[in-house]
């Protein structure tokens, strides 16, 4: 039995019918053919598949596509605008934050999640924040430098926003009721 889902991916509403067992990462890559999000371990260890689900970084190999119904998803393709890299991507570019690049889409999304919550993170804080992302080339030094560089760029652009500490928020389910299957058979 397939389920209708409506997921906003990188700002575009996408409607599909999916099996409940389909993982979000496979939905993105195989159904929508948006392949910037990588699949590494497929068991929630490596973080290559990290995307934003309603602005929070999650491992898309651990989320069912149906659980993202009604939510908005941002993948690495959603970062650059009009062919211009965003600050985090630019930071990775300038500080050589990648070698083979396989982990990079996930690390970029984790870095964004960190910088949204903490605009001026210490190296230690960065290391903790990216501890769910593995870099098999072990290029962690330059990744940390890249995120520091990105933080600087972002602070320079919005000095007022950088001082604001974001309050904790509760994410409420945005899933659409009319699309839900009746609970009892």
């Amino acid at each position, binding site marked *: 039995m397939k389920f209708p889902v409506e997921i906003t991916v990188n700002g575009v509403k996408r409607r599909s019918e999916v099996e409940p067992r389909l*993982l979000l990462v496979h939905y993105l890559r195989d159904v929508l053919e948006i392949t910037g999000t990588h699949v590494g371990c*497929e*068991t929630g260890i490596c973080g290559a598949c990290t995307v934003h689900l309603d602005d929070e970084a999650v491992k898309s190999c651990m989320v069912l596509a149906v659980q993202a119904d009604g939510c908005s998803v941002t993948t690495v393709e959603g970062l650059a605008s009009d062919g211009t890299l965003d600050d985090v991507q630019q930071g990775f570019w300038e500080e050589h934050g990648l070698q083979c690049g396989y982990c990079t889409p996930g690390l970029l999304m984790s870095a964004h999640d960190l910088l949204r919550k903490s605009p001026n993170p210490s190296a230690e804080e960065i290391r903790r924040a990216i501890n769910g992302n593995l870099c098999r080339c072990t290029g962690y030094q330059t990744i940390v430098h890249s995120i520091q560089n990105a933080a600087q760029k972002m602070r320079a652009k919005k000095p007022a926003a950088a001082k604001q500490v974001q309050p904790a928020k509760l994410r409420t389910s945005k899933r659409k*009721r009319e699309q839900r299957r009746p*609970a009892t*058979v």
Partner: protein
Amino acid sequence: MKNFELYEPSNVREAVATLVKIGPKAKVIGGGSDLVAGVMKDWVQGNGMPLPDALVDLSTIPQLKGIKVDKTGATIGAMTTLTEIVESKDLQKQFSLLTQAAHSVASPLIRNFGTLGGNINQRPRCWFYRGAEFNCYKKGGDFCYSVGGDNRYHAIIGGELCYIVHPSDTATALLALNAQAKIAGPRGDRTVPFDQYFIGPREDVLRENILKADEVMTEVFIPTPAPGTKQAWSKLKNRQVYDFAIVSVAAAFTTDASGNWADGRVVLGGVAPVPYRATNIENQLKGKNVKNSIKQAAATIRTAARPMSMNAYKVDVAQTMVERTILGALG
């Protein structure tokens, strides 16, 4: 992954009705970090543990989310994510033990989607249980492979038949904070203190808690700790970043003006099939100066411990960690 039917209830009553209707082959899903990404993807199954035919997704029930703190205590919905718990200023103020324990779970990416209810009710991480080739007691088989196999991370206390350790950090902290679980079922709601929530393999080897197949944990209530309660959390892992505990210690206690132990709890994770309340240690400390007596009290863990061939080191670790955690809480 095995295919399954999906049910999306809009309230708890619907969720319970669905579980009753479908029976034990339906399972509730929170964030799915363990059920989907662990159990189902790795085909962890056996006679006593069939893979679910149907999942009842609790993320469509908004009432299960949220943190409410008032004079009596904190009420946390079972579907509240671990990140929401970590970031809650209200919890940090009075229940810092839970904040710390939740923060020590996995990585931010998993905490962003993983829920409190899921963390408490996740299945154990024993590598034999998780391995498809091992038809162990916990899956309904007739053997525990840890007895003759590599048991370096297995139980040192309370193992019988099956030597898993309880994997949840938040469960360990909640037991130390004397919390209660609210459970909804076909016969109505019931409230169970965490003291009685977890069960060992002798009681039922196929599960780790009293939650029945047609019941849903809806929320957790933590009573406001007595004024001046000291709280501390520590967790030893094999690697600095995310992993399950080799040993964890949660302590919440009060002392009188002269530094004598008044009341409190010491709970260990990673050592037993349930979060282990070290009443031996608590009793040893009762009425005594904590600073002067903790060394001797912590050593009583040795009388409870029955280590296996490769995990005697965990007894030393547990003893030392209890000592350090309690001294740390004294400041």
